[in-house]
Protein backbone atom coordinates (compact mmCIF):
# COMPACT_ATOMS: atom_id res chain seq x y z
CA UNK A 1 0.00 0.00 0.00
CA UNK A 2 1.28 3.44 -0.79
CA UNK A 3 0.46 6.57 1.18
CA UNK A 4 -1.03 9.74 -0.23
CA UNK A 5 1.28 12.42 -1.61
CA UNK A 6 2.71 14.93 0.83
CA UNK A 7 4.45 18.18 -0.06
CA UNK A 8 7.09 20.57 1.27
CA UNK A 9 7.15 24.35 1.06
CA UNK A 10 10.08 23.95 -1.34
CA UNK A 11 7.79 22.02 -3.72
CA UNK A 12 9.12 18.50 -3.30
CA UNK A 13 6.58 15.67 -3.06
CA UNK A 14 6.96 12.43 -1.15
CA UNK A 15 5.08 9.15 -1.17
CA UNK A 16 5.67 6.17 1.13
CA UNK A 17 5.50 2.73 -0.40
CA UNK A 18 6.44 -0.37 1.59
CA UNK A 19 8.51 1.64 4.02
CA UNK A 20 10.43 3.46 1.28
CA UNK A 21 9.96 7.17 0.48
CA UNK A 22 9.78 8.12 -3.19
CA UNK A 23 10.64 11.74 -3.88
CA UNK A 24 10.13 14.17 -6.75
CA UNK A 25 9.17 17.78 -7.47
CA UNK A 26 5.61 19.04 -7.84
CA UNK A 27 3.80 19.90 -11.05
CA UNK A 28 3.84 23.54 -9.94
CA UNK A 29 7.63 23.42 -9.48
CA UNK A 30 8.34 21.91 -12.88
CA UNK A 31 6.11 24.52 -14.49
CA UNK A 32 7.92 27.35 -12.72
CA UNK A 33 11.32 26.01 -13.76
CA UNK A 34 10.38 25.58 -17.39
CA UNK A 35 12.12 23.07 -19.65
CA UNK A 36 14.50 21.09 -17.49
CA UNK A 37 17.74 20.31 -19.30
CA UNK A 38 19.83 18.51 -16.71
CA UNK A 39 19.90 17.13 -13.20
CA UNK A 40 22.63 16.40 -10.67
CA UNK A 41 21.56 13.31 -8.75
CA UNK A 42 22.85 12.15 -5.36
CA UNK A 43 24.73 8.85 -5.09
CA UNK A 44 22.98 5.78 -3.71
CA UNK A 45 24.18 5.29 -0.15
CA UNK A 46 24.29 9.01 0.55
CA UNK A 47 22.72 10.09 3.83
CA UNK A 48 20.77 13.36 4.09
CA UNK A 49 19.07 15.27 6.87
CA UNK A 50 15.63 16.76 6.29
CA UNK A 51 16.06 20.07 4.41
CA UNK A 52 19.55 19.33 3.08
CA UNK A 53 20.27 19.82 -0.62
CA UNK A 54 20.25 16.39 -2.27
CA UNK A 55 20.01 17.22 -5.98
CA UNK A 56 20.10 20.17 -8.39
CA UNK A 57 17.89 20.63 -11.43
CA UNK A 58 18.77 23.06 -14.19
CA UNK A 59 16.52 24.60 -16.78
CA UNK A 60 17.80 26.89 -19.52
CA UNK A 61 17.56 29.98 -17.33
CA UNK A 62 17.46 28.68 -13.75
CA UNK A 63 19.13 26.33 -11.37
CA UNK A 64 17.27 24.98 -8.39
CA UNK A 65 18.13 22.93 -5.31
CA UNK A 66 16.08 19.89 -4.39
CA UNK A 67 15.95 19.45 -0.62
CA UNK A 68 15.51 16.15 1.15
CA UNK A 69 11.88 16.23 2.41
CA UNK A 70 12.76 13.74 5.16
CA UNK A 71 15.99 12.39 6.62
CA UNK A 72 17.40 9.08 5.49
CA UNK A 73 19.64 7.10 3.19
CA UNK A 74 19.36 7.16 -0.60
CA UNK A 75 18.71 3.64 -1.81
CA UNK A 76 18.01 4.36 -5.48
CA UNK A 77 18.03 7.30 -7.90
CA UNK A 78 16.21 7.68 -11.20
CA UNK A 79 19.16 7.23 -13.57
CA UNK A 80 16.86 7.64 -16.56
CA UNK A 81 16.66 11.38 -15.80
CA UNK A 82 20.28 11.87 -16.79
CA UNK A 83 19.44 11.03 -20.40
CA UNK A 84 15.88 12.33 -20.29
CA UNK A 85 15.52 15.13 -17.74
CA UNK A 86 12.36 16.22 -19.60
CA UNK A 87 10.52 13.35 -17.84
CA UNK A 88 10.31 15.69 -14.83
CA UNK A 89 8.32 18.13 -16.99
CA UNK A 90 6.22 15.45 -18.64
CA UNK A 91 5.40 13.29 -15.66
CA UNK A 92 6.47 14.88 -12.37
CA UNK A 93 4.57 12.44 -10.13
CA UNK A 94 5.37 9.24 -11.98
CA UNK A 95 8.29 8.57 -14.34
CA UNK A 96 9.84 11.90 -13.27
CA UNK A 97 10.53 10.69 -9.69
CA UNK A 98 14.02 11.60 -8.50
CA UNK A 99 15.14 9.35 -5.63
CA UNK A 100 14.08 6.71 -3.13
CA UNK A 101 15.03 7.19 0.50
CA UNK A 102 15.00 4.79 3.43
CA UNK A 103 13.62 7.12 6.13
CA UNK A 104 15.43 7.32 9.46
CA UNK A 105 13.00 9.50 11.40
CA UNK A 106 9.77 9.17 9.52
CA UNK A 107 7.12 9.41 12.27
CA UNK A 108 8.18 12.85 13.38
CA UNK A 109 9.13 14.34 10.04
CA UNK A 110 6.25 13.07 7.94
CA UNK A 111 3.84 15.05 10.14
CA UNK A 112 5.52 18.33 9.21
CA UNK A 113 4.63 17.92 5.53
CA UNK A 114 1.57 19.31 3.74
CA UNK A 115 -1.36 17.36 2.35
CA UNK A 116 -2.38 17.91 -1.28
CA UNK A 117 -5.22 20.28 -0.24
CA UNK A 118 -2.98 22.27 2.03
CA UNK A 119 -0.27 22.49 -0.63
CA UNK A 120 -2.76 23.67 -3.26
CA UNK A 121 -3.86 26.44 -0.88
CA UNK A 122 -0.21 27.29 -0.25
CA UNK A 123 0.64 27.72 -3.93
CA UNK A 124 -2.54 29.73 -4.37
CA UNK A 125 -1.15 32.16 -1.80
CA UNK A 126 2.34 32.48 -3.24
CA UNK A 127 1.27 32.76 -6.88
Amino acid sequence: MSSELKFTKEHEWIKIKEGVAIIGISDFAQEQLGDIVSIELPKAGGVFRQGQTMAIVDSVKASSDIYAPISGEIIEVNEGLIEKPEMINQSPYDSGWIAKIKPSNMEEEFESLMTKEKYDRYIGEIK
Partner: protein
Amino acid sequence: MKIIFEYEEEKNTGHLQKEEEEDVCIELPDDISRKELLPIPNVNEVDVVRHYTNLSRMNFGVDIGFYPLGSCTMKYNPKVNEDAARAEGFSNLHPLSPEVCTQGSLKLMWELKEYLKDITGMDDFTLQPSAGAQGELLGVMMAKAYFRHKGEKRTKAIIPDSAHGTNPATASMCKLETITIPSDPRGNIDIRRYRESLGPEVALVMLTNPNTLGLFDENTIEISDLAHKNGILMYCDGANMNALLGITRPGDQGFDMIHLNLHKTFSTPHGGGGPGAGVLGVKSFLSEYLPVPQVVKRDSGYSLDYDCKKSVGRVRSFYGNFGMHVRAYSYIHSWGTKIRKVSEHAILNANYLQALLKDTFDLAYDRRCAHEFVLSSRRFGEKSALNIAKRLMDYGFHPPTIYFPLIVPEALMIEPTETESKETLDRFVLALKKITSELKEDPEMVKQSPLSTPVGRLDEVAAARRPNLRWRPSQRTNQSGSE
Protein backbone atom coordinates in the same frame (compact mmCIF):
# COMPACT_ATOMS: atom_id res chain seq x y z
CA MET B 1 26.62 29.91 -43.42
CA LYS B 2 29.12 27.12 -43.69
CA ILE B 3 31.39 26.46 -40.77
CA ILE B 4 35.10 26.59 -41.52
CA PHE B 5 35.40 22.79 -41.45
CA GLU B 6 32.83 22.47 -44.21
CA TYR B 7 34.98 23.98 -46.95
CA GLU B 8 35.01 20.77 -48.85
CA GLU B 9 37.97 20.64 -51.14
CA GLU B 10 41.49 20.82 -49.85
CA LYS B 11 43.05 24.03 -51.08
CA ASN B 12 46.50 25.48 -51.06
CA THR B 13 46.74 27.41 -47.77
CA GLY B 14 49.30 29.85 -49.08
CA HIS B 15 50.67 30.27 -45.56
CA LEU B 16 53.77 28.11 -45.70
CA GLN B 17 57.05 29.26 -44.19
CA LYS B 18 60.10 28.64 -46.31
CA GLU B 19 62.48 25.92 -45.22
CA GLU B 20 66.19 26.57 -45.56
CA GLU B 21 68.91 24.15 -46.50
CA GLU B 22 70.11 23.82 -42.92
CA ASP B 23 66.61 22.93 -41.63
CA VAL B 24 67.19 19.21 -41.56
CA CYS B 25 64.32 17.75 -39.65
CA ILE B 26 65.29 15.03 -37.25
CA GLU B 27 62.73 12.27 -37.03
CA LEU B 28 60.71 12.48 -33.81
CA PRO B 29 60.71 9.34 -31.67
CA ASP B 30 57.69 7.21 -32.48
CA ASP B 31 56.13 7.23 -29.01
CA ILE B 32 55.72 11.03 -28.98
CA SER B 33 54.91 11.84 -32.59
CA ARG B 34 51.44 12.46 -33.97
CA LYS B 35 50.18 9.37 -35.80
CA GLU B 36 47.03 10.71 -37.39
CA LEU B 37 46.93 13.47 -39.94
CA LEU B 38 46.17 16.77 -38.19
CA PRO B 39 42.40 16.98 -38.77
CA ILE B 40 42.16 20.67 -39.67
CA PRO B 41 41.31 21.84 -43.17
CA ASN B 42 43.47 23.68 -45.67
CA VAL B 43 41.51 26.73 -46.84
CA ASN B 44 42.90 29.55 -48.96
CA GLU B 45 43.25 33.07 -47.55
CA VAL B 46 40.59 34.61 -49.75
CA ASP B 47 37.99 32.12 -48.54
CA VAL B 48 39.06 32.58 -44.93
CA VAL B 49 38.78 36.37 -45.20
CA ARG B 50 35.33 36.14 -46.77
CA HIS B 51 34.21 33.57 -44.20
CA TYR B 52 35.04 35.76 -41.20
CA THR B 53 33.94 38.98 -42.89
CA ASN B 54 30.56 37.40 -43.51
CA LEU B 55 30.41 36.17 -39.93
CA SER B 56 31.14 39.68 -38.71
CA ARG B 57 28.14 40.93 -40.66
CA MET B 58 25.93 38.70 -38.51
CA ASN B 59 27.05 40.53 -35.38
CA PHE B 60 26.03 43.65 -33.50
CA GLY B 61 28.54 45.98 -31.85
CA VAL B 62 28.78 49.54 -30.52
CA ASP B 63 30.12 50.51 -33.95
CA ILE B 64 26.79 49.45 -35.46
CA GLY B 65 24.29 50.99 -33.12
CA PHE B 66 22.97 51.86 -29.67
CA TYR B 67 23.90 49.14 -27.16
CA PRO B 68 22.26 50.02 -23.80
CA LEU B 69 23.25 46.76 -22.08
CA GLY B 70 22.91 47.56 -18.39
CA SER B 71 25.90 46.94 -16.11
CA CYS B 72 28.25 46.51 -19.11
CA THR B 73 28.98 50.16 -20.02
CA MET B 74 28.95 49.72 -23.79
CA LYS B 75 30.43 53.10 -24.65
CA TYR B 76 32.19 53.99 -27.87
CA ASN B 77 35.71 52.54 -28.14
CA PRO B 78 37.97 55.23 -29.64
CA LYS B 79 39.93 53.95 -32.63
CA VAL B 80 43.08 55.82 -31.71
CA ASN B 81 43.48 53.58 -28.64
CA GLU B 82 43.53 50.55 -30.92
CA ASP B 83 46.39 52.07 -32.90
CA ALA B 84 48.29 52.70 -29.68
CA ALA B 85 47.98 49.10 -28.50
CA ARG B 86 49.01 47.77 -31.89
CA ALA B 87 52.17 49.90 -32.08
CA GLU B 88 55.10 47.58 -32.69
CA GLY B 89 56.94 48.75 -29.58
CA PHE B 90 54.09 47.42 -27.44
CA SER B 91 52.69 44.51 -29.40
CA ASN B 92 55.98 42.77 -30.25
CA LEU B 93 57.56 43.07 -26.81
CA HIS B 94 58.30 39.76 -25.09
CA PRO B 95 57.28 39.86 -21.40
CA LEU B 96 60.61 38.40 -20.29
CA SER B 97 62.73 40.97 -22.15
CA PRO B 98 65.41 42.62 -19.98
CA GLU B 99 64.30 45.84 -18.27
CA VAL B 100 66.49 48.01 -20.51
CA CYS B 101 64.11 47.03 -23.33
CA THR B 102 60.82 47.48 -21.45
CA GLN B 103 61.02 50.97 -19.94
CA GLY B 104 58.18 52.32 -22.09
CA SER B 105 55.77 49.58 -20.99
CA LEU B 106 56.79 49.79 -17.34
CA LYS B 107 56.40 53.57 -17.33
CA LEU B 108 52.93 53.24 -18.82
CA MET B 109 51.89 50.69 -16.20
CA TRP B 110 53.31 52.76 -13.34
CA GLU B 111 51.59 55.93 -14.52
CA LEU B 112 48.31 54.11 -15.11
CA LYS B 113 48.40 52.93 -11.49
CA GLU B 114 48.99 56.52 -10.35
CA TYR B 115 45.99 57.78 -12.34
CA LEU B 116 43.75 55.01 -11.02
CA LYS B 117 44.83 55.73 -7.44
CA ASP B 118 43.81 59.33 -7.92
CA ILE B 119 40.51 58.51 -9.58
CA THR B 120 39.42 56.01 -6.90
CA GLY B 121 41.07 57.43 -3.79
CA MET B 122 43.02 54.23 -3.18
CA ASP B 123 46.66 53.98 -2.10
CA ASP B 124 47.97 51.22 -4.31
CA PHE B 125 47.00 49.17 -7.35
CA THR B 126 47.81 45.94 -9.13
CA LEU B 127 47.14 45.64 -12.85
CA GLN B 128 47.47 41.86 -12.83
CA PRO B 129 43.87 40.49 -12.80
CA SER B 130 42.56 39.59 -16.25
CA ALA B 131 38.94 40.56 -15.64
CA GLY B 132 36.61 41.85 -12.94
CA ALA B 133 35.87 38.37 -11.63
CA GLN B 134 39.58 37.66 -11.21
CA GLY B 135 40.05 41.02 -9.48
CA GLU B 136 37.33 40.00 -7.04
CA LEU B 137 38.93 36.61 -6.52
CA LEU B 138 42.23 38.28 -5.77
CA GLY B 139 40.51 40.72 -3.40
CA VAL B 140 38.88 37.92 -1.42
CA MET B 141 42.17 35.96 -1.32
CA MET B 142 43.93 39.05 0.01
CA ALA B 143 41.24 39.55 2.65
CA LYS B 144 41.75 35.95 3.78
CA ALA B 145 45.51 36.40 3.91
CA TYR B 146 45.10 39.64 5.87
CA PHE B 147 42.95 38.00 8.53
CA ARG B 148 45.23 34.95 8.67
CA HIS B 149 48.19 37.21 9.46
CA LYS B 150 46.11 38.93 12.13
CA GLY B 151 45.26 35.54 13.58
CA GLU B 152 41.52 35.95 12.99
CA LYS B 153 39.27 33.28 11.57
CA ARG B 154 36.50 34.89 9.55
CA THR B 155 34.36 32.70 7.29
CA LYS B 156 31.52 34.81 5.93
CA ALA B 157 30.88 37.49 3.32
CA ILE B 158 27.95 39.93 3.34
CA ILE B 159 26.48 40.47 -0.13
CA PRO B 160 23.27 42.33 -1.06
CA ASP B 161 20.63 40.50 -3.09
CA SER B 162 21.07 42.97 -5.96
CA ALA B 163 24.76 42.00 -6.41
CA HIS B 164 26.34 40.61 -9.56
CA GLY B 165 26.41 36.79 -9.55
CA THR B 166 30.20 36.88 -9.50
CA ASN B 167 30.26 38.22 -5.91
CA PRO B 168 28.68 35.14 -4.28
CA ALA B 169 30.45 32.83 -6.76
CA THR B 170 33.82 34.34 -5.81
CA ALA B 171 33.12 34.12 -2.08
CA SER B 172 32.22 30.48 -2.45
CA MET B 173 35.37 29.70 -4.50
CA CYS B 174 37.27 30.94 -1.45
CA LYS B 175 35.16 28.86 0.91
CA LEU B 176 33.37 31.85 2.44
CA GLU B 177 29.72 31.51 3.30
CA THR B 178 27.46 34.18 1.79
CA ILE B 179 25.04 36.19 3.92
CA THR B 180 22.50 37.73 1.53
CA ILE B 181 20.99 41.08 2.55
CA PRO B 182 17.75 42.23 0.90
CA SER B 183 17.19 45.70 -0.55
CA ASP B 184 14.90 48.22 1.12
CA PRO B 185 12.00 50.02 -0.62
CA ARG B 186 14.36 52.77 -1.86
CA GLY B 187 16.76 50.26 -3.40
CA ASN B 188 19.40 50.67 -0.70
CA ILE B 189 20.76 47.75 1.28
CA ASP B 190 18.31 47.04 4.16
CA ILE B 191 20.29 48.69 6.92
CA ARG B 192 18.49 46.95 9.80
CA ARG B 193 19.14 43.50 8.36
CA TYR B 194 22.67 44.56 7.59
CA ARG B 195 23.33 45.56 11.21
CA GLU B 196 22.00 42.24 12.44
CA SER B 197 24.32 40.29 10.19
CA LEU B 198 27.55 41.95 11.36
CA GLY B 199 29.83 39.98 13.61
CA PRO B 200 33.30 38.62 14.30
CA GLU B 201 32.90 35.81 11.75
CA VAL B 202 32.35 38.23 8.83
CA ALA B 203 35.44 38.87 6.69
CA LEU B 204 34.12 41.35 4.18
CA VAL B 205 31.18 43.25 2.78
CA MET B 206 31.00 43.16 -1.02
CA LEU B 207 29.11 46.13 -2.36
CA THR B 208 28.51 47.49 -5.83
CA ASN B 209 28.10 51.26 -5.70
CA PRO B 210 26.12 52.61 -7.47
CA ASN B 211 24.39 49.25 -7.14
CA THR B 212 22.98 47.14 -9.95
CA LEU B 213 19.72 49.05 -9.70
CA GLY B 214 21.66 52.12 -10.80
CA LEU B 215 21.26 53.73 -7.39
CA PHE B 216 23.93 55.24 -5.20
CA ASP B 217 23.41 53.70 -1.75
CA GLU B 218 22.30 56.56 0.48
CA ASN B 219 23.84 54.90 3.55
CA THR B 220 27.24 54.10 2.10
CA ILE B 221 29.23 55.89 4.79
CA GLU B 222 27.22 54.33 7.60
CA ILE B 223 27.65 50.89 6.02
CA SER B 224 31.43 51.35 5.89
CA ASP B 225 31.64 52.69 9.44
CA LEU B 226 29.63 49.80 10.83
CA ALA B 227 31.79 47.28 8.96
CA HIS B 228 35.02 48.83 10.19
CA LYS B 229 33.77 48.92 13.79
CA ASN B 230 33.43 45.16 13.51
CA GLY B 231 36.85 44.71 11.95
CA ILE B 232 35.29 43.86 8.59
CA LEU B 233 36.83 44.88 5.24
CA MET B 234 34.81 46.85 2.69
CA TYR B 235 35.11 45.54 -0.87
CA CYS B 236 33.76 47.60 -3.78
CA ASP B 237 32.74 45.93 -7.03
CA GLY B 238 33.70 48.88 -9.23
CA ALA B 239 31.77 47.70 -12.29
CA ASN B 240 29.76 50.92 -12.11
CA MET B 241 32.65 53.37 -11.77
CA ASN B 242 31.39 55.12 -14.91
CA ALA B 243 28.98 57.00 -12.65
CA LEU B 244 31.60 58.34 -10.25
CA LEU B 245 34.61 59.72 -12.16
CA GLY B 246 35.63 62.99 -10.52
CA ILE B 247 32.37 63.13 -8.55
CA THR B 248 33.07 60.93 -5.54
CA ARG B 249 35.77 58.37 -4.77
CA PRO B 250 35.22 54.87 -3.34
CA GLY B 251 38.36 55.35 -1.25
CA ASP B 252 36.69 58.32 0.47
CA GLN B 253 33.47 56.35 0.97
CA GLY B 254 35.28 53.91 3.23
CA PHE B 255 36.09 51.11 0.82
CA ASP B 256 39.32 49.21 1.50
CA MET B 257 39.47 47.47 -1.88
CA ILE B 258 37.99 48.03 -5.32
CA HIS B 259 38.31 46.33 -8.65
CA LEU B 260 37.72 48.32 -11.82
CA ASN B 261 36.73 46.90 -15.18
CA LEU B 262 38.93 48.75 -17.66
CA HIS B 263 36.70 47.42 -20.45
CA LYS B 264 33.74 49.22 -18.94
CA THR B 265 34.74 52.58 -17.49
CA PHE B 266 37.90 53.11 -19.51
CA SER B 267 36.50 52.16 -22.91
CA THR B 268 38.70 49.21 -23.84
CA PRO B 269 36.64 47.20 -26.35
CA HIS B 270 34.54 44.28 -25.08
CA GLY B 271 35.74 42.00 -27.90
CA GLY B 272 32.59 39.86 -28.05
CA GLY B 273 33.10 38.78 -24.44
CA GLY B 274 36.68 39.71 -23.59
CA PRO B 275 39.53 40.37 -23.00
CA GLY B 276 38.83 42.59 -20.05
CA ALA B 277 41.14 43.85 -17.36
CA GLY B 278 40.11 43.80 -13.70
CA VAL B 279 42.70 45.93 -11.93
CA LEU B 280 42.49 45.98 -8.12
CA GLY B 281 43.06 49.00 -5.85
CA VAL B 282 43.65 48.82 -2.10
CA LYS B 283 44.28 50.99 0.94
CA SER B 284 47.86 51.08 2.15
CA PHE B 285 47.41 48.55 4.98
CA LEU B 286 46.61 45.88 2.35
CA SER B 287 49.40 46.86 -0.02
CA GLU B 288 51.83 44.18 1.14
CA TYR B 289 49.35 41.43 0.20
CA LEU B 290 49.19 42.50 -3.47
CA PRO B 291 50.41 39.98 -6.06
CA VAL B 292 53.95 39.98 -7.43
CA PRO B 293 55.54 41.50 -9.37
CA GLN B 294 54.76 45.17 -8.71
CA VAL B 295 55.98 47.92 -11.05
CA VAL B 296 58.15 50.36 -9.10
CA LYS B 297 59.93 53.58 -9.99
CA ARG B 298 63.56 53.86 -8.96
CA ASP B 299 66.27 56.45 -9.66
CA SER B 300 67.66 54.11 -12.31
CA GLY B 301 64.29 53.75 -14.05
CA TYR B 302 61.21 51.53 -13.83
CA SER B 303 61.52 48.03 -12.54
CA LEU B 304 59.56 44.92 -11.54
CA ASP B 305 59.71 44.15 -7.83
CA TYR B 306 59.28 40.52 -6.78
CA ASP B 307 60.25 41.05 -3.16
CA CYS B 308 57.15 40.96 -1.02
CA LYS B 309 56.94 38.34 1.70
CA LYS B 310 53.26 38.71 2.53
CA SER B 311 52.10 38.75 -1.10
CA VAL B 312 49.34 36.27 -1.94
CA GLY B 313 51.43 35.26 -4.97
CA ARG B 314 50.12 35.43 -8.50
CA VAL B 315 46.73 35.03 -10.16
CA ARG B 316 48.07 34.73 -13.70
CA SER B 317 51.27 34.61 -15.74
CA PHE B 318 53.25 37.78 -16.47
CA TYR B 319 51.74 41.20 -15.59
CA GLY B 320 48.11 41.35 -16.72
CA ASN B 321 46.32 42.16 -19.96
CA PHE B 322 48.90 44.75 -20.96
CA GLY B 323 47.23 45.55 -24.30
CA MET B 324 44.17 46.65 -22.32
CA HIS B 325 46.34 48.78 -20.03
CA VAL B 326 47.62 50.64 -23.10
CA ARG B 327 44.10 51.41 -24.32
CA ALA B 328 42.87 52.54 -20.89
CA TYR B 329 45.96 54.68 -20.40
CA SER B 330 45.46 56.30 -23.78
CA TYR B 331 41.79 56.91 -22.94
CA ILE B 332 42.66 58.57 -19.63
CA HIS B 333 45.16 60.81 -21.45
CA SER B 334 42.51 61.90 -23.94
CA TRP B 335 40.22 63.12 -21.11
CA GLY B 336 42.86 64.03 -18.56
CA THR B 337 41.70 66.51 -15.93
CA LYS B 338 38.30 66.79 -17.63
CA ILE B 339 37.36 63.17 -16.96
CA ARG B 340 34.42 64.17 -14.71
CA LYS B 341 32.52 65.10 -17.86
CA VAL B 342 32.29 61.38 -18.74
CA SER B 343 30.29 60.54 -15.63
CA GLU B 344 28.22 63.70 -15.75
CA HIS B 345 26.96 62.84 -19.20
CA ALA B 346 26.51 59.14 -18.43
CA ILE B 347 24.24 60.23 -15.56
CA LEU B 348 22.43 62.88 -17.59
CA ASN B 349 21.71 60.44 -20.41
CA ALA B 350 20.39 57.81 -18.00
CA ASN B 351 18.13 60.25 -16.15
CA TYR B 352 16.84 61.65 -19.44
CA LEU B 353 15.86 58.18 -20.67
CA GLN B 354 14.37 57.30 -17.29
CA ALA B 355 12.26 60.45 -17.30
CA LEU B 356 10.93 59.71 -20.79
CA LEU B 357 10.16 56.05 -20.06
CA LYS B 358 8.97 55.96 -16.47
CA ASP B 359 5.29 56.31 -17.31
CA THR B 360 5.33 53.72 -20.08
CA PHE B 361 6.83 51.08 -17.77
CA ASP B 362 7.04 50.59 -14.01
CA LEU B 363 10.10 52.12 -12.48
CA ALA B 364 11.62 49.60 -10.07
CA TYR B 365 12.60 52.39 -7.65
CA ASP B 366 11.27 55.89 -8.20
CA ARG B 367 14.44 57.89 -7.59
CA ARG B 368 16.89 59.81 -9.73
CA CYS B 369 19.31 57.25 -11.04
CA ALA B 370 23.04 57.20 -11.56
CA HIS B 371 24.39 55.95 -14.91
CA GLU B 372 21.70 53.29 -15.43
CA PHE B 373 18.21 52.38 -14.27
CA VAL B 374 15.89 49.39 -14.09
CA LEU B 375 12.39 49.30 -15.53
CA SER B 376 9.86 46.53 -15.08
CA SER B 377 7.57 45.55 -17.94
CA ARG B 378 5.35 43.45 -15.65
CA ARG B 379 2.23 45.36 -16.72
CA PHE B 380 2.69 43.75 -20.16
CA GLY B 381 2.61 40.25 -18.73
CA GLU B 382 4.91 37.27 -18.40
CA LYS B 383 7.92 37.08 -20.70
CA SER B 384 7.26 40.67 -21.81
CA ALA B 385 10.83 41.77 -21.09
CA LEU B 386 12.11 39.00 -23.36
CA ASN B 387 9.64 39.86 -26.12
CA ILE B 388 10.42 43.57 -25.95
CA ALA B 389 14.14 42.81 -26.08
CA LYS B 390 13.75 40.63 -29.16
CA ARG B 391 11.55 43.14 -30.95
CA LEU B 392 14.04 45.97 -30.27
CA MET B 393 16.46 44.23 -32.61
CA ASP B 394 14.08 44.84 -35.50
CA TYR B 395 14.37 48.55 -34.73
CA GLY B 396 18.15 48.38 -34.97
CA PHE B 397 18.95 48.51 -31.26
CA HIS B 398 20.77 46.10 -29.02
CA PRO B 399 18.39 45.16 -26.18
CA PRO B 400 19.06 46.20 -22.59
CA THR B 401 20.07 43.61 -20.01
CA ILE B 402 16.94 41.65 -19.14
CA TYR B 403 15.88 39.65 -16.05
CA PHE B 404 18.69 41.19 -14.02
CA PRO B 405 18.85 42.19 -11.21
CA LEU B 406 16.91 39.11 -10.15
CA ILE B 407 14.90 41.07 -7.56
CA VAL B 408 12.94 43.03 -10.19
CA PRO B 409 10.31 41.05 -12.15
CA GLU B 410 10.46 41.43 -15.96
CA ALA B 411 13.49 43.67 -15.53
CA LEU B 412 14.91 45.86 -18.31
CA MET B 413 18.23 47.30 -17.17
CA ILE B 414 19.21 50.27 -19.33
CA GLU B 415 22.63 51.92 -19.44
CA PRO B 416 22.91 54.45 -22.28
CA THR B 417 26.51 55.68 -21.52
CA GLU B 418 27.76 59.19 -22.19
CA THR B 419 28.73 58.67 -25.83
CA GLU B 420 25.14 58.57 -27.17
CA SER B 421 23.50 61.65 -28.62
CA LYS B 422 20.08 63.00 -27.64
CA GLU B 423 18.78 62.01 -31.10
CA THR B 424 19.76 58.36 -30.53
CA LEU B 425 18.12 58.33 -27.10
CA ASP B 426 14.94 59.86 -28.56
CA ARG B 427 14.81 57.22 -31.29
CA PHE B 428 15.21 54.50 -28.66
CA VAL B 429 12.31 55.90 -26.61
CA LEU B 430 10.12 56.03 -29.71
CA ALA B 431 10.95 52.42 -30.55
CA LEU B 432 10.14 51.21 -27.03
CA LYS B 433 6.82 53.06 -27.02
CA LYS B 434 5.97 51.67 -30.44
CA ILE B 435 6.69 48.16 -29.20
CA THR B 436 4.42 48.58 -26.20
CA SER B 437 1.56 49.45 -28.52
CA GLU B 438 2.46 46.51 -30.75
CA LEU B 439 2.23 44.31 -27.67
CA LYS B 440 -1.42 45.31 -27.37
CA GLU B 441 -2.34 45.33 -31.07
CA ASP B 442 -0.36 42.42 -32.45
CA PRO B 443 1.15 40.41 -29.59
CA GLU B 444 1.72 37.33 -31.77
CA MET B 445 3.99 39.28 -34.12
CA VAL B 446 6.06 40.52 -31.17
CA LYS B 447 6.37 36.96 -29.86
CA GLN B 448 7.71 35.90 -33.27
CA SER B 449 10.27 38.69 -33.35
CA PRO B 450 12.99 39.44 -34.28
CA LEU B 451 11.95 39.22 -37.91
CA SER B 452 14.85 41.01 -39.57
CA THR B 453 17.88 39.26 -38.04
CA PRO B 454 20.10 36.62 -39.72
CA VAL B 455 18.44 33.93 -37.58
CA GLY B 456 15.21 33.84 -35.60
CA ARG B 457 14.78 32.80 -31.97
CA LEU B 458 16.98 29.82 -31.25
CA ASP B 459 15.99 26.58 -29.58
CA GLU B 460 17.99 26.76 -26.36
CA VAL B 461 16.28 23.72 -24.86
CA ALA B 462 17.35 21.50 -27.75
CA ALA B 463 20.86 22.94 -27.55
CA ALA B 464 21.11 21.86 -23.91
CA ARG B 465 19.35 18.51 -24.18
CA ARG B 466 21.13 17.32 -27.32
CA PRO B 467 24.46 19.11 -27.11
CA ASN B 468 26.49 19.66 -30.28
CA LEU B 469 29.47 21.62 -29.02
CA ARG B 470 32.05 20.96 -31.70
CA TRP B 471 32.56 19.77 -35.23
CA ARG B 472 33.79 16.19 -35.73
CA PRO B 473 35.54 14.81 -38.79
CA SER B 474 32.75 12.22 -39.10
CA GLN B 475 30.38 15.11 -39.93
CA ARG B 476 32.30 15.74 -43.13
CA THR B 477 30.45 12.99 -44.98
CA ASN B 478 26.89 14.01 -44.14
CA GLN B 479 27.21 17.78 -43.99
CA SER B 480 24.63 20.30 -45.09
CA GLY B 481 23.96 24.00 -44.71
CA SER B 482 20.93 23.43 -42.54
CA GLU B 483 19.84 20.39 -40.64
